[in-house]
């Protein structure tokens, strides 16, 4: 069983490494961000499997923390401010 867990972890790690291509290539910013999001989910799976393989339940806590955090960077990407020059104008010429 442990071999299966580790083997699947290896496969998922290879998935992450191959998915890096999308970050490197992906034409738009959204492509890159969604690849990072996918990595977060795959890392949760890897951590769960490694935790089971080494009987280390602390890794399941790390997986929970990862699951909580994958959202934060993606939300920061969605909410980021692309036109900072506009709020330097004092008469408030801002278009939403």
């Amino acid at each position, binding site marked *: 069983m*442990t*071999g299966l867990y*580790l*083997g699947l*972890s*290896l496969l998922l*790690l*290879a998935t*992450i*490494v191959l998915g*890096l291509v999308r*970050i*490197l290539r992906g034409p738009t*910013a959204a492509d*890159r*961000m969604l*690849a*990072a999001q996918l*990595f*977060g989910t795959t*890392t949760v799976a*890897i*951590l769960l499997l*490694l935790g089971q*393989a080494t009987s*280390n339940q*602390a*890794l399941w*806590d*790390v997986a*929970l*923390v*990862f699951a*909580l*955090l994958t*959202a*934060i*960077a993606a*939300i*920061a*990407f*969605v*909410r*980021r*401010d*692309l*036109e*900072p*020059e506009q*709020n330097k104008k004092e008469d*408030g*010429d*801002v278009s*939403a």
Partner: protein
Amino acid sequence: MTLLFGHLIDLLLAVSLTVLAWRLLATSDLFKATVLFIAFGLLMALAWVRLDAPDLALAEAVIGAGITGVLLLTALRHLDSGARVARMSGRSGRRSLRVLLPALGIMPALLVLLCLSSPHIRSTAGLTASVIERLDQIGTDHPVTAVLLDFRAYDTLLETAVLLLAVVAVWSLHPVRPIFSPEPISPAQRGLLRLLLPVLIMTSLYLLWRGSHAPGGAFQAGALLAAGLLLLLLSEQRLPGRWSGMFLRLLLAGGFMIFLLVAAGALVGTGTLLDYPGGGASWLLLSIEAALSLSIAALLATAVIGGRPSDRSTEFPPRRKDPAGEEG
């Protein structure tokens, strides 16, 4: 078979971390570099897990992949679109960089391999045994927490001071500016906030409590709470102006001050700095950790906001100015 898979995982991690770091440094688009950095943080956390250090993996996950990712993404806005593409020194510069960086990366790796294969290093046992045999004198069961808060507490005290100084440095640069785009938030994001925020707070408390006997502790709990604060900021919640004065400053400095008070109290009591009374009762360590967590959360969130609060009447961080008129 198990051993083979384990080694293959380690090999794949090592190679991909190195290649990722190289591509990250060699790219000219700063946004791409930021996303690569987030991916790097994720893989680094996996590397810590493989090295049998879950505490470090937790800290790397929260800070490297989470908070630093948000910090870099919001910092990109300060650059105008021209500066968002890093300038290389021309085609020849880029080509030599492509050869130089991997070559520089291989040398330390070879050095480490050389050291690891020497019989002298293989025979030393490290400090694990001596920490574990002194654990019953401290109010905690977890060796990492014992080292961080008792055996090497001086380091932790000064590290908290470093965080505080970092925020002071950030504040001395310029007053706070509006950070996120003024578009209205999707209701889906509001719903996600309502679900994630309580779970984040509870997990932070859980990590703080677990720090006494399992991987966890003040820094990880504080960083997770900072992630919760960032989520609030990203959903257009702001600190009311009257709290951005003395209250905010007390919150930022509080953890360090309490830790310093305990250390000084021990100095007065037993003549040695940080010699906890009674060998460090667990309640004392837990309360120091709780204060540290709150302060670390406030410090990290304030560092991401990135400017000093201007006065007591505006929110922190401020809203975008309304084109129709001034906001109070």
